[in-house]
């Protein structure tokens, strides 16, 4: 659906169901340069099982209007604004990669508004490889190719997409090329590189939190994910073997099962 936030049009997938304000809200926040489509194997399930779902296209990404936000802090405030804009007082947040930085910061800034936090391939800081950052900021498609290489584990490189017939790396590349690379990936990478408050923000989080990590994640390795998770009181950790950074697609079923158990327990549907 489309709606307005801060005078810009925002697109969010509602998981194939009409948005229903009477149901608890789950917001999904994508990673650098990507779109709402990365969440399709999680959002549809929740949308058909008692929740209202918003898989956002961040400003300037996918089908959303406006320009990409330049800092993780601005993105965190924007997610909070989204909750207000759709008429909710609270929500459950799910983030992937950069989306983890955003949702951690948003949760720390809005302790009463966010009820559960689910992090996939998260870390307290995501310093960027300088060459990758240079390529992305200079609109070089090689930035996408490198990101897809590093972001995928065996399923991405060899195959075995949970949806028959889909090929991970090429699909991911297309998602990352939906808009101009320097205006999405370039801006996002710079925002990740600049963000330094992740570990401090994590210490302030007191709500149920889940971290899903993957053994073959080269972008946010397990040890970095654990470092973040261990700062959050009572945080749960689930580690997936033989899987890369794109676990929400590479091991979509496993991720959905863990997420389902966590959210339905800590933020049950009506």
């Amino acid at each position: 659906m489309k709606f307005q936030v801060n005078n810009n049009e925002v697109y969010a997938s509602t998981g194939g169901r009409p948005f229903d304000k009477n149901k608890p809200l789950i917001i999904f926040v994508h990673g650098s340069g990507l779109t709402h489509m990365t969440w399709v194997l999680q959002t549809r399930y929740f949308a058909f099982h008692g929740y209202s779902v918003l898989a956002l296209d961040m400003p300037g990404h996918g089908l959303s209007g406006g320009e990409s936000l330049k800092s993780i802090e601005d993105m965190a405030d924007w997610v909070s604004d989204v909750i207000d804009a759709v008429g909710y007082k609270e929500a459950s947040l799910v983030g992937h990669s950069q989306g983890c930085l955003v949702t951690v910061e948003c949760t720390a800034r809005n302790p009463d508004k966010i009820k559960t936090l689910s992090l996939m391939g998260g870390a307290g800081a995501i310093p960027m490889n300088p060459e990758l950052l240079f390529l992305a900021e200079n609109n070089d498609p090689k930035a996408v190719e490198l990101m897809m290489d590093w972001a995928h584990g065996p399923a991405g490189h060899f195959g075995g997409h949970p949806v028959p017939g889909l090929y991970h790396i090429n699909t991911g590349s297309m998602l990352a090329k939906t808009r101009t690379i320097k205006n999405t990936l370039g801006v996002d990478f710079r925002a990740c590189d600049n963000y330094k408050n992740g570990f401090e923000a994590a210490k302030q989080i007191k709500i149920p939190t889940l971290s899903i990590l993957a053994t073959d994640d080269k972008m946010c390795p397990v040890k970095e994910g654990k470092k973040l998770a261990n700062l959050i009181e009572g945080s749960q950790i689930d580690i997936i073997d033989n899987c890369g950074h794109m676990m929400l697609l590479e091991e979509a079923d496993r991720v959905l099962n863990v997420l389902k158990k966590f959210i339905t327990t800590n933020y049950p549907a009506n």
Partner: protein
Amino acid sequence: MSDKKGMDPKTYKFDTLSLHAGYQPHKNAGSRQVPIYQTTSYLFDDVDHAAALFNLERGGHIYSRISNPTVAVLEERVASLEGGTAALATSSGMSAIFLAVMTLCEAGDHLVVSSQLYGGTVNLFRLTLPKFGIKTTFVKPRDTEGFKKAIQKNTKGIFGELVGNPGNEIMNMPEIAKIAHDAGIPLMVDATYQTPYLCKPIDHGADIVVHSLTKWMAGHGSSMAGIIVEGGKFDWMQNDKFPTMTQPYEGYHGLSFAEEFGPTAFTMKARAEGMRDFGPCLSPQNAWNVLQGIETLSVRMKKHCENAEKMVEYLLGHESVAWVSHPSVPDHPDHDLASKLLPNGKGSMIAFGIKGGKAAGEAFINNVKLASHLANVGDTRTLVIHPASATHSQMDEATLKFAGLSHDMIRLSVGIEDIDDIKNDFENGFRAARKPRLVSNQ
């Protein structure tokens, strides 16, 4: 663009993908070879799991008409080789074309189609699709401007064979892709003759690629199969031409394929709707057979092309041959375009005219022994046919002429036998072909 050099992605290259893409042994009992999942259906964990699969909330297999794990390996493998986001395998090349068209079009829609096509494909567009309310304007493949002129308000796509069957005319794919995209419609290309080893149409602007996998991809003349590959670049939401892609679909609780699946929307719709309702599924055994062929695709294609170029040289110098059409011939009208689009080889399909016309052609066909006379191409073995009396025989004179066919034309699919044996066999054919002329001259 930056000129910064340094890191390079370590994603697997063509020959490696030909052997490995789509499959992980550790998820299949360690079986090094892809297992043949000879089953109709798949157990659900519980009622909720079943409902989620049927509603596309989860990925997975339900029933082998819709998807099958062995077939899915083939689909991923071909998608990876073509540079596509997704693929859907079908029971034959013709069912791939039909399913692609039915995914794209509705009654009242129109397509612009190259006139140089396999005879069965011509009949599909000319005679069968009008029964579904889908009309076609045919344009000669070299008439690039003609494609633009033929586009109407209700045109939903352009379709053609990159190298036309059987005359070897080549579509200017990059320019025709631009024409299509300027009109807000996709370009669909049948790249059966090329395989992704010779050309990846998606890199040249095609949005949907179809193959008869029966031919060079499988390569051994054993199994029927087809596939639709999606490029993932086409924006279905850029206009209101494709409501079945962009609007809520009643068949899946209001799902919008374009919104939910973006770069894989076409494949998702083709599978969810097309396979569900038409059902031209590929058998797992045939999928496995095609996978065996793809493992050696680059090795075979190199040999096919090498032999083809030697046969071109032989035919050009032969007294019984009136003309030779192959993109490797320097005076072929599309030689330069072919060099750009087909850098790894110009393919192994040759059309040539035999002196003495139809009677000589028939005598030639009846007297070659090594070359097989049959209605197929892309076998490891050398194949010959006389199109006017076989593959294109259901066409009338005018349609034959429009399709660029003549009665003296022999279609040759060069195999990977020893080249001297192929030439010796042809000598026998040509010798026999000269006899009726000698008789008629007396």
